[in-house]
């Protein structure tokens, strides 16, 4: 039977690999220490990675790191909630493990699952060796006690398929765990998260409690507020609300993300978007839409906003036909405002 054993050389390779990794780890640790030294350092760190953030946001990351607390990020879609977690991961040089939530997500998909197929295969394979194991055993009781000596092999680490949450706990040198759109999951799943969020551990009935390694993961949860998150979950987290940015901040964000765009046009388009957010729309444009629009305008070699151009590109910033129709009438006025001020 083809049971593949690791070759001799593999362990050597592994050792040298871990040495390299050890070096890398030390470097990362120093880096992390430097970046998380103060709120200001974090802010500049984020800026270096083209993520412009308010004091509130950098404070949140600072506290999350030092107090080892998860951050629950709420806010309208497209303000950079997921991006924050991603940027934090690259900035700190940690791997990002992402768990996308949806209705019906359960522990089998979020924490762990048994490798049923493998278990089955092995039982089939081992059928033939059963004779040897039970050699000389007489009667049922004796056979069973003989089997007991082998313990719960089939429910050991070997047969465990780790899913994102368990993976994050087992990551040697810490990682960033992003639990995206937690509001889309069921209530049951929220309760499931409580243990991992407060104690950085999960319980697997067959094995026991798995605790986080040396460095617990840094956890970000995002929510679009489609439903209230339970108090129990909120209590365990820092609560960060990211609103739409003001004009100044948005300009800086555009500058960081689309540096090629001329400053005058940047100012105009940000003013336009800000005006748009005051209108009664089904879905107001978020930062991601502003960035897309800036890229579009850049692609069209635009120098300054004019009503026709705005009309043509309106579908980049507005995602509902109804909204587009409503805004269409206002375009000249809004454009004028944006160009003149």
């Amino acid at each position, binding site marked *: 039977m083809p049971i593949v054993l690791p070759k001799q050389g593999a362990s050597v390779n592994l050792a040298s690999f871990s040495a390299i990794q050890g070096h890398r780890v030390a470097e990362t640790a120093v880096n992390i220490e430097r970046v998380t030294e103060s709120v200001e350092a974090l802010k500049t760190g984020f800026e270096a990675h083209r993520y412009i953030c308010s004091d509130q946001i950098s*404070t*949140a990351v600072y506290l999350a790191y030092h107090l080892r607390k998860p951050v629950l990020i709420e806010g309208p879609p497209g303000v950079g909630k997921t991006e924050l977690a991603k940027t934090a991961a690259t900035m700190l040089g940690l791997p990002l493990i992402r768990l996308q939530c949806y209705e019906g997500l359960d522990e089998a998909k979020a924490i762990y699952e048994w490798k049923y197929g493998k278990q089955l295969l092995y039982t089939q394979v081992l059928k033939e060796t059963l004779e040897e194991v039970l050699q000389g055993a007489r009667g049922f009781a004796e056979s069973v006690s003989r089997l007991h000596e082998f313990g719960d092999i089939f429910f050991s680490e070997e047969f465990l398929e780790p899913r994102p949450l368990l993976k994050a706990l087992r990551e040697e040198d810490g990682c960033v765990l992003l639990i995206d759109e937690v509001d889309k999951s069921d209530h049951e799943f929220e309760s499931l998260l409580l243990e991992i969020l407060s104690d950085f551990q999960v319980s697997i009935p067959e094995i026991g409690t798995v605790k986080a390694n040396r460095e617990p993961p840094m956890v970000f949860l995002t929510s679009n507020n489609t439903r*209230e998150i339970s108090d129990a979950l909120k209590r365990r987290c820092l*609560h960060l609300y990211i609103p739409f940015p003001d004009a100044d901040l948005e300009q800086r964000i555009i500058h960081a993300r689309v540096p090629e765009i001329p400053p005058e046009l940047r100012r105009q388009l940000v003013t336009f978007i800000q005006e748009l957010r005051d209108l009664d729309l089904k879905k107001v444009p978020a930062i991601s839409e502003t960035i897309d629009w800036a890229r579009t305008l850049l692609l069209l070699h635009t120098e300054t906003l004019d009503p026709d151009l705005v009309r043509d590109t309106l579908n980049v910033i507005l995602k509902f036909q109804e909204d587009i129709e409503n805004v269409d009438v206002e375009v000249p006025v809004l454009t004028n405002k944006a160009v003149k001020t």
Partner: protein
Amino acid sequence: MDRTLTSFIAALRNADVRVSTAETLDALSAVELVGYGDRELLKNTLSLMLPKTVDEKDAFEVTFDRFFTFEDVDGSTDAGDAGTGEDGQGDGDGGAEGGEGGAGTGAGNRKSKGRFRAAATEDQEDESLGPGEMVSPRSELGILLMMDSRIELTVRMADAARAVNLEQIQVFTQKGLYTRRIMDEMGLPDLQREINELRFSGALPERRLSQELQKRRERLREQVRDYVERQFLLHADASGRRLREQLLRRVKLSNVEHRNFRLIQEVVLKMAKKLVALYSRRKKVFRRGQLHVPRTLRRNMAYDGNIFDLHWKSVKIDRPKVFAICDVSGSVANYARFMLMFLYSLEEVMPRVRAFAFSSDLAEVTELFERNGIEDAIAKTLRDYGGGSTDYGQAFEDFRHKCLDDVDNRTTIIILGDARNNYGEPRAEILKEMYDRAKRVLWLNPEPRTTWNVGDAEMRRYVAYVHQAEECNSLLHLERIVGNLLRTVQ
């Protein structure tokens, strides 16, 4: 330090921000990390730790600004007060001596007499420590006042405030009372006695001290009043409101005054939110022992058809389908307003509410509620269908005509009305039809049970064809009834 934070959290709780003990501990450790040095950082930190919704964040902003600025405000207003006080004395008849700082600034434009007095004050201040023209005060508060240390005074004031339980202040009329109590606690009676004794003693230094003490006492009173005012805003403003809210829950809805509508709306929303939180979980009923064969087979395909992952049949419980039929004639309109408000605030747990309004003719107003905000929709409903005399017979007839077919065994019908039919035909047989079709028919009557059958009321006939008839004339009743409704359906 801990004390500052805990009293801040108490103020937050007062402003309707829910802070648990665990969060308090978290906040403490966070503050340990960032310290009290940087105000902006502290604010950002606490706003991450304590408030957990957008509304709470707003409340937090206000409370934080009120709570953590008052030390600075204290200093500046004091300086201002002192300044104006001295100016007034300088320009006035010179009956009182200049204050400590005024002697320097005001000396230039004062008359010679004034200058002399200013000089005298300076002397006195020097001498108040030792023997001299002005005797040193004997009472405790007097000594404190003459020491002229703002910090000492503030500390003493805070102690006194704590001793008289200032944080229990509830309504604004108590401000004067608490001001006096704090002053008494700080030792006002002794000071008063001393001032009186000094005033009637012949010697000049004593009289001078008496005047100085009087002046400083007035300034202290001013400070204490300010302090009480601030504490009132922090601690009592909200609890006074809570008191009113408590009352509003019990008060008869037809007696609610117009100016309280906003508040009552908030109360309704709050109650609705509570119910939503309680019932927003969609429960499943597992039919234990009934295997869901298709699903089990599907799930076990991956394991070579070996069935070891079993799936059982389950049913998701349906959310209630509610038909609300509201009498909006003059006598009951107010109740209808609040019931509709309540039902539509529960959208999250009762997504399918259809509303009907009638006084004589019945019309569906569901669409109004879909297109407008709750407030507007209610106003429009009352405008278009309100007033007029009630005709239940006609209304039932219309209902049968329009949508009796939509009523099925999952529908709950809520009828709100006083059943006063102006001696018209009651048409109870239509109600019976509804009763037979629907899952539940509820009748909410705003009148007390004793008058249900008096005069032109037809309650006796209708009661036979409803599952439940309830008296309902306050928010508390409404909450209980809607809560029951949700409970029985789930």
